[in-house]
């Protein structure tokens, strides 16, 4: 019955889970209005050298006096020296973060949480389905898969956003495709000049060929309702529950399973998630207001 698994990621940097490390904004990219990517570097070289993370994990970014926010890491785990976080302005912390400039000092605790199963799906086909800013936690997977491209079969990314402007990391698409990513985008509403797909991302899934469903792994991140329909579509295409992974979001306060905020049934989303294999959370995703 108990199914607590050991956090698959590397242990966080410190034995005191409350201690933040000083980091600085090294690079700042405005992705779209209200969304920016902050590359952070540690002040302390020893801390920087010790820091590694796995795709899907998150950090707690801390602005003293304002508070902390859980932000997934959107960088290349192979280059952990500078750590990108793509952040949408949504609350006090992220608003205050948006005021900061390159060189600004802030705190970081992490990495925390579970990882996408990039090792589990070696030898198989990988299907990534993202919605909106949900591409950010999946970008480390893209980097990791493409870095070891020969270890995987087909790698497909289906990415939906409300509008063409809402598609993240557009300047990287060519590179990803050239490295062997089968990549399709779709938007809810096209704009002038948009020649791509219009509609929900599950339509792309319904249309694509899945030659060997028993060896295909789905990783999905986006609004819960989008993930839900993606899961249903995948199940209909004969993927098993054990081949489906989702990243869930709850109010994370401590990030280390000690504060109770992010509970989702028996799960602490900060500790057992944010990435879950679907069979583990299926019954809870069906309960209202859990």
């Amino acid at each position: 019955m108990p199914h607590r698994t050991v956090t698959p990621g590397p242990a966080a940097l410190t034995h005191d889970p409350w201690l933040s490390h000083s980091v600085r904004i090294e690079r700042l990219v405005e992705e779209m209005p209200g969304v920016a990517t902050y590359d952070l570097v540690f002040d302390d070289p020893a801390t920087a050298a010790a820091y590694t993370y796995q795709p899907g994990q998150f950090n707690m970014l801390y602005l003293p006096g304002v508070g902390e926010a859980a932000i997934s890491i959107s960088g290349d785990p192979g280059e952990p020296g500078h750590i990108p976080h793509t952040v949408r302005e949504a609350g006090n912390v992220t608003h205050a973060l948006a005021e900061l400039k390159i060189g600004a000092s802030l705190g970081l605790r992490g990495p925390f949480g579970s990882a996408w199963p990039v090792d589990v799906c070696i030898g198989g086909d990988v299907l990534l389905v993202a919605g909106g800013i949900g591409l950010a936690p999946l970008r480390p997977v893209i980097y990791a898969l493409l870095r070891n491209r020969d270890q995987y079969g087909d790698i497909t990314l289906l990415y939906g956003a409300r509008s063409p402007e809402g598609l993240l990391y557009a300047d990287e698409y060519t590179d990803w495709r050239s490295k062997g990513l089968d990549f399709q985008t779709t938007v809810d509403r096209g704009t002038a000049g948009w020649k791509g797909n219009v509609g929900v991302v599950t339509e792309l899934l319904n249309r694509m060929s899945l030659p060997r469903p028993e060896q295909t792994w789905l990783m999905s991140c986006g609004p819960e309702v989008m993930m839900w329909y993606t899961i249903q579509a995948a199940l209909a295409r004969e993927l098993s529950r054990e081949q489906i992974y989702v990243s869930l979001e709850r109010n994370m306060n401590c990030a280390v399973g000690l504060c109770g905020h992010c509970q989702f049934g028996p799960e602490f989303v900060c500790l057992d998630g944010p990435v879950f294999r679907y069979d583990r959370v299926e019954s809870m995703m069906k309960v209202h207001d859990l």
Partner: protein
Amino acid sequence: MLKFASCDGCQLSLLDCEDELLAIAGAVDIAYFLEATSSVRPGPYDVALVEGSITTPHDLERVRQIRKQAGFLVTIGACATAGGIQSLKNWADHEEFMRCVYAQPEFISTLSTSTPIAAHVPVDFELRGCPISRHQLVEVLAALIAGRKPRTPTHSVCLDCKRRGTVCVEVAQGIPCLGPITQAGCEAICPAYNRGCFGCYGPAAQANCDSLVDHYQQQAVGTERLVPLLRNFNAAAPEFQAASNRVAGGDAS
């Protein structure tokens, strides 16, 4: 800092912020604060702190003017956010009151009700309490200066009682207490001095007044005690008003 029907106690809370007052005075430009200075400058104002309830036709006109002048309008205190203790008149015969009190009631121009500011103009933030907490006032001002959302609690007084180790006066002594349905902010003072909560900070979020009232009635707390308990500084707060009306048997407004 502008005032309607009220006792000025909430305005005084700002002057009571002794430690923080200089920092506040340094960070903001105080344009209108009669309790502190008679020097007054005309609007528009970035932030208007409004104390007091609307009780006269003149108030009505003035609050609309203030709204036009104010970038961000914060109502402070039970009068401004819920009508205050003077909203007891909402349940009484206002004409009769005037006849009893004034020799020539025809010179009195007043409304039959005391109502919160938000009943008449849009309000950007409500700071509860009778009086308000100076800590919360500083928090609101600090948040406005920093451009963030103020952090004020929405939880019940009970949580603060427990945090400070106060034994529940209701459970241990049978003292009727509004703590379970009242918003925190006062640091749970009254139960710490062996008194039930008077509801000074108004209804907590999603306050379950019916259940508490049912319980007190089962405990044989009479209408003559329950109605005044609910009709206090926040008598006209919708949740408390509905509860007191239910206890009183619908014999009021």
